[in-house]
């Protein structure tokens, strides 16, 4: 995947600066590159001061929701009466997203440093880094990095543990992740109470994404104003963001650009455009859980939290899935629905039954046995699955279905009317 990494001139490398540089993985190598300086400095600062800097920088959660990070940290009790925890969400499982994996593969110390700074800011003595079970290579590097940094005693009183997931997508949902760490079934919890009030083991907890935390040391180093200045568009979206591009582009991979970068340029310039002889048909801009964009929307979309919403989707995790004109959107949507049906935790009725039913209807349409009424049924079902459950897995299944039918209705109708050859669905 293009390593050693040579960034495109239009990239702004902050997080991905050392991607491909194996020496940066080691403790010594990281220190040589200025690593852990900011942690040492932060540990001497008032926690509230650290939070203020992060607030000022405009950093927002990179896991998908885009919640302001400093604000989230400030929800933690100021006066400490119970143990505080920091959970690091490294359970990156969103289809089309592979940015956290690269951070852990190449700059594990960036994550460890950012985590320790965050822990100090929220007055947490313990950090749990919950790493996706399939990430065997990142796990190895993280383990090694943690051992080295712990031996060098850089974390002060803060204790960091790695916790390995066991393969469930839903454990990337923050409260399911906490249940999983506690040794329980990975079911999302009802909110309230929110994690800052009662999270891991019932204690005040903050949970942040890998990319979010990796951005913290550079923010401290170069200042909130610098980070805030990294924006091409909305002042509400600041800094750089890693985009994992996959699908029918010439050069898939991770690209780091400043907020507000045009999606069109990401696809056509940085990724080298579509496969030869093909044209862009659709794009999922923020991981599989967000609405699909058509070509016009894709080519006019700015990559920041507001810009993608303006086009009818969401920035999400930054997993950009690109489809060319050969893509069968009905099939692609069915595959997404099937993923959610497989991964539903089974708690909420709408999700447990709705994801599976949606999949069955889509499979039947693909088999050439669909009815026109199925499209209305899919939309109605999706409406039932949106905003009515504990977590948003159900909504995530509905999003591509609704946006897909809206934008590519003709493809569904072709299958139903028999104008398109049925697909055997395994």
């Amino acid at each position, binding site marked *: 995947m293009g390593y050693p990494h040579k960034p495109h001139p239009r990239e702004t490398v902050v997080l991905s600066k050392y991607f491909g540089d194996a020496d940066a993985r080691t403790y010594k190598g990281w220190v040589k590159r200025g690593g852990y300086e900011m942690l040492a400095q932060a540990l001497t600062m008032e926690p509230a001061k650290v939070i203020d800097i992060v607030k000022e920088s405009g950093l927002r959660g990179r896991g998908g929701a885009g919640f302001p990070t400093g604000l989230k940290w400030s929800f933690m009790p100021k006066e400490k009466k119970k143990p505080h925890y920091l959970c690091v969400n490294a359970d990156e499982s969103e289809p089309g997203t592979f940015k956290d994996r690269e951070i852990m593969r190449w700059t594990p110390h960036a994550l460890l440093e950012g985590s320790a700074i965050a822990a100090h800011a929220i007055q947490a003595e313990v950090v749990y880094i919950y790493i996706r079970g399939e990430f065997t290579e990142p796990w190895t590097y993280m383990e090694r990095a943690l051992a080295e940094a712990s031996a060098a005693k850089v974390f002060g009183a803060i204790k960091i543990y790695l916790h390995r997931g066991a393969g469930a997508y839903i454990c990337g949902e923050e409260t399911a992740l906490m249940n999983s760490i506690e040794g329980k079934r990975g079911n999302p919890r009802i909110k309230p109470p929110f994690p800052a009030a009662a999270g891991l083991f019932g204690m005040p907890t903050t949970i942040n994404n890998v990319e979010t935390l990796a951005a913290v040391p550079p923010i401290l180093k170069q200042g909130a104003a610098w980070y805030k200045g990294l924006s091409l568009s909305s002042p509400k979206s600041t800094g750089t963001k890693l985009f994992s591009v996959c699908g029918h582009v010439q050069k898939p991979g991770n690209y780091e650009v400043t907020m507000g970068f045009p999606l069109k340029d990401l696809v056509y310039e940085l990724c080298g455009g579509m496969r030869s002889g093909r044209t862009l048909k659709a794009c999922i801009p923020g991981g599989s859980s967000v609405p699909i964009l058509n070509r016009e929307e894709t080519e006019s979309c700015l990559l920041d939290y507001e810009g993608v919403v303006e086009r009818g989707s969401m920035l999400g995790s930054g997993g950009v899935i690109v489809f060319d004109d050969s893509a069968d959107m009905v099939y692609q949507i069915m595959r997404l629905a099937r993923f959610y049906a497989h991964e539903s935790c089974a708690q909420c009725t709408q999700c*447990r*039954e709705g994801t599976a039913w949606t999949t069955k209807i889509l499979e039947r349409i693909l088999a050439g046995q669909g009815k026109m009424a199925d499209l209305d049924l899919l939309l109605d079902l999706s409406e*039932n699955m949106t905003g009515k459950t504990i977590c948003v897995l159900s909504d995530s299944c509905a999003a591509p279905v609704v946006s897909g039918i809206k934008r590519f209705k003709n493809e569904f109708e072709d299958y139903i009317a028999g104008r398109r050859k049925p697909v055997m669905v395994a």
Partner: protein
Amino acid sequence: MADELINLTIDGAPVSVPKGTLVIEAAKQAGVLVPHYCYHPGLPVAGVCRMCLVEIEKAPKLQIACATQVAEGMVVRTQSPQAKQGRMGVLELLLINHPLDCPICDQAGECELQDFTFQEGRPATRYSPDYAKRFNPVEDFGPDVLYVPNRCILCTRCVRFMEDVAKEPVLNVSERGDRAFIGIHPEARLDHPWAGNVVDLCPVGSLLSKDFLHKARAWELDKTASICTGCSQGCNVTLDTRDNIVVRVRPRPNLDVNRYFICDHGRMNYRWMNRGDRIEAPLVQRDGELHAADWDEACERVATLLRGAGGRAVALVSPKASTEALFLARELFTGLDWRGAFQVVMGEEAPLAGVPNLALRAERAPNAKGAELLGYTRDYAATLAAAESAAIVLVLDEPDLVVRTAGTLIYVGTVLPDGARAATVVLPIANVAEEDGTFVNRDGRAQRYFQAKPAPGMARPAWWVFSELAAAAGRGERIASADEAFERLSASVDGLRGLVPA
């Protein structure tokens, strides 16, 4: 501040409830039942079935009434088009994998899925009959519990009961998505002494009692409020009868005694109520044999004995007899030198760990406390010995008792044991399912039970029998009802003084 009241409006009706109350409970006070499956007041909130979706003003989306606390000025609408649409959606989804085998399902008629579907479900499904429904074979979970996974709606009430109430977490949700089912620990059985409650808790016909399997359709049952006779806890129960046969015992909620639960010992403790070998007529001794008589003759015989009696009288009574009967039996001996005693069968205590002060008690009798309050002692052996020289010995429904006496034996009971064949008079009485009465539980709480079925033949409630005998012997007035008997005893007995039948 536990006493702080919150004012809100539910479907237009204003209600005031304590702070912290859940919307679903507040709605009950407004006379509104919000349809629900996973919620149960005796279990921790799960919020998973999503059936209790309601509209709350100012909330951006529908909220679940079971996990939302009331707030001052809150306006709740359970019948708004959005709320009804949301719940209709849940019902449709619950039914797509549900077999619709109501005609052969034990739960039919008392099934919450059936009830709410009739109330607000879709008239027809949109789920194609071409799609297979989820199938898993029936599983034998425990001594009295079958699991029919096809009917399961995964509300997790059973899982939460075992985990949080019984504190023996042998059940879980296994698998994910629409493949999920209730799993049992591979090396465990659902044999906890309180496990049978999962059958009551199950809102559908997924967890079934083997004991009740195919015995009756729900609509054939008559239901009567009663008190369990299994031990001194005094759990409130409902006796379900079909054609005057008790076919099931279920818990009746009482937050102070048994909350929503009963133990399996109590649940199974009903077959004797249907015994066929009952005494159906008064029997009097004539020519060395017992002969059937009418009540007048029998009462007159006893009255004659009582009138001529001198010396000591002894009463050996069952701690399962009603307080009213025990009181009137005592009254019968007014003026005589009498002593009364009872014995209690003991067993193993089995607490329900998650509920304070709730257990299957070692003392396997419902009314030992009542007997004590009335002056009967636990000094059974000595009283039995005293019976040998007593002039009159009254035995109240102790069929296993072997009593020797030189005096006259009066046996009042439901069945005729060999030991009672020497009695001068045998009087047939109703059992607990056949009479009204009161038991006093181990904490001194007097609790009433009601007649669920008729007594066989000429058998009468024991309180009636003793009242008739007293009247015949000129030792008291006739009493018309168990209520009147209770009023009389509550006027004089310490510990029950001042209580009135509700």
